[in-house]
């Protein structure tokens, strides 16, 4: 098989796969999130009891995962827009993906303490 003639593997395909997977994950969360927010129409207690689940350590890690998925989908989505609408977009798609990964890593590092801090305080005391 001649190398490099198939659209398979490398940054182009894997960013496409990651975009689909993160998109599906975020969509399913969105469905649940609208349902839990709708509890404000039931009673303040029903809402606060459910939101308490979001404050537990285990769910805090899932929230960090949600932030990871949303951030990648958002940044890579901007890259997709650039590929489609910028006349040099396709030529620089690989460099743009690594830029996306770099910005994503910086933002994830910055989100770690605000999103996970309370979970660590609860797990390891004060």
């Amino acid at each position, binding site marked *: 098989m001649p190398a490099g003639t198939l659209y398979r593997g490398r940054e182009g395909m894997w960013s496409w796969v990651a975009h689909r997977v993160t998109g*599906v994950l975020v969509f399913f969360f969105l469905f649940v999130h*609208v349902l839990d927010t*709708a509890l404000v129409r039931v009673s303040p207690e029903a*809402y606060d009891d459910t939101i308490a689940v979001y404050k537990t350590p285990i769910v805090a890690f899932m929230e960090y995962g949600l932030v990871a998925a949303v951030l990648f989908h958002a940044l890579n989505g901007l890259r*997709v827009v650039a590929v489609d609408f910028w006349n040099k977009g396709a030529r620089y798609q690989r460099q743009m993906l690594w830029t996306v990964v770099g910005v994503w890593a910086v933002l994830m590092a910055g989100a770690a303490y*605000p999103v996970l801090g309370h979970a660590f305080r609860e797990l390891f005391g004060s």
Partner: protein
Amino acid sequence: MAIETTQVTDTTYSPDNPAPVIEPPRARTGRTPRATRTNFELYGWLFMRLSGIVLVVLVLGHLLIQLVLDGGVSKVSFAFVAGRWASPFWQAWDLIMLWLAMLHGGNGLRTIINDYAERDTTRFWLKMLLYTATVFTVLLGTLVIFTFDPNIR
């Protein structure tokens, strides 16, 4: 030059003996299925990009407010929601975010179902389930934003 190669065949076409018409591959004719007679997929493609750009601002702002600023998720409560939805600005923010995100996600899942569900009936019912869930969620969320009552208790 090109003319010589086309003249190789015996038939010579003229106004009285016109060559058979070959339709362009994607021409829309009377026999084209209804589903492909509109530019729906083009508008869907454009909507994903335009709504995506808006959602980057709305959703990342939402995550910043709910999960990062002021103690992160720990401060979220009924009172916090009531405080934010007292402002028409945040009501509009959440309403636009709800509609764009659900339509963006719904169209994304429609694409994925079309790609991976190969049997016609499977594809049809998965999309019916998707459309039902999407319409239900959009309507429920809209109702909640418009009928929110801070003095419910």
